[in-house]
């Protein structure tokens, strides 16, 4: 979907380097949200991809929220969609904690070990099957407006570039997060002025990994 998360090229967000911007997080709840998100995935407690679900946040909320606040929001939605929790369940525990109740203890050493082991696993892209484009091919990104999750940002739509490499095959995300058939993924290089016009910065290249379905021969 073409939401506010698709920020490439936008103006108005201010400076990159600001006080505190060098830290990965600033408060203890942030890495715990990260860990919860990871564990919800490993233990198969949720449904859907956090990355895709975060794009569904109401736009003003998405922009106002901090990074791990968005993750917390997406964890709750994943758990709800799977039926692991119901809307309101978290609110009730907020009330109970606010009233002074202690969080219940729950230890599971095997789960901890399983998590650490699983986090270390890599799932490489599949090998390339038949491909429509070769290295050096000139391609154009299709104009589109996908309603679901996409990995084709708006700023390259309609632009021409050159295939620099074939990355392998991966599941096509546009028809549902990560559930489509595998497709070739290409590294495509764009000249900056083919994306953004002339710039006082001169020229540079922008390279994206794009699914074959996003491309046509130019």
């Amino acid at each position, binding site marked *: 979907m073409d939401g506010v998360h*698709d920020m*490439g*090229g*936008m103006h108005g967000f*201010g400076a*990159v*380097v600001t006080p505190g*911007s*060098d*830290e990965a997080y600033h*408060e203890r*709840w942030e*890495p715990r*949200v*990260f860990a*919860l998100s*990871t*564990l*919800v995935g490993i233990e198969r*407690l949720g449904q859907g991809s956090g990355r895709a679900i975060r794009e569904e946040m109401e736009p003003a909320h998405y922009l*106002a*929220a*901090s*990074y791990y606040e968005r993750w*917390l929001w997406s*964890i709750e939605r994943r758990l709800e969609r799977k039926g692991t*929790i119901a809307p309101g369940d*978290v609110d009730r*525990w907020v009330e109970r904690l606010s009233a002074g109740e202690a*969080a*219940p*203890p*729950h*230890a*599971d050493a095997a*789960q*901890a070990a399983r*998590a*650490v082991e699983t*986090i*270390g696993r890599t799932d*490489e*892209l599949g090998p390339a099957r038949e491909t429509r484009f070769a290295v050096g091919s000139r391609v154009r990104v299709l104009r589109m407006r996908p309603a679901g999750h996409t*990995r*084709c*940002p708006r*700023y390259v739509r309609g632009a021409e570039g050159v295939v620099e490499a074939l*990355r392998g095959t991966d599941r096509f995300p546009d028809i549902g997060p990560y559930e489509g058939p595998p497709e070739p*993924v290409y*590294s495509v290089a764009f000249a900056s002025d083919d994306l953004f016009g002339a*710039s006082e*910065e001169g020229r*540079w*290249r*922008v*390279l*994206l*990994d*794009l*699914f074959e379905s996003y491309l046509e021969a130019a």
Partner: protein
Amino acid sequence: MTQEHDHDHEHHQPQPQPEVALRTEALEALLAERGLVSSNAIDAVVELYENDVGPQNGARVVAHAWADPAYRTRLLGNGTPAVYELGFSGFELNTLVAVENTPAVHNVVVCTLCSCYPWPLLGLPPSWYKSPPYRARAVAEPRAVLREFGLELDSNVEIRVWDSTAEVRYLVVPERPAGTDGWPEEELARLVTRDSMVGTGRALEPSELAGR
């Protein structure tokens, strides 16, 4: 224009919200109550990324590539097995592509759509990497962004901005600083900063090590 409305940015920059911390605790309590997620599993994941997974891993890869030309070739040719040789793999490193900075080419990595980042090599990303300004500007005004990091590149350097739009993650191999011939890999690794592996910085000069 940025300066002009800074006062407004201050008003509306997302602030740490105590209710988010409480809500996180509540979610932990809920999942513990149901016996689904244990507090020691949460602790284990947090500690994993605080102690074992961080830019020191990427630095080992870069130092090894600097020291061993055959490894450098393997790394640039096919990153995933090359970093696995050193024991690095895992979530957000499905396919690794290593790109090399030279006097003629400067690579920099971004993820405009979310904040994809090679966790097993660099740990959790810094706040700036995840911020709207970096996601918005890195592809469209890279020199202005690099300047904020104190990096002023010659106008004849080709900048290549990698937008991580698929399950491919990028590691920048920075230029090896002069005056480091014959250094052991452990010493070389100390020169390799996190930012130098994202492309928003250079490796440290030997003279810069002293102060660290």
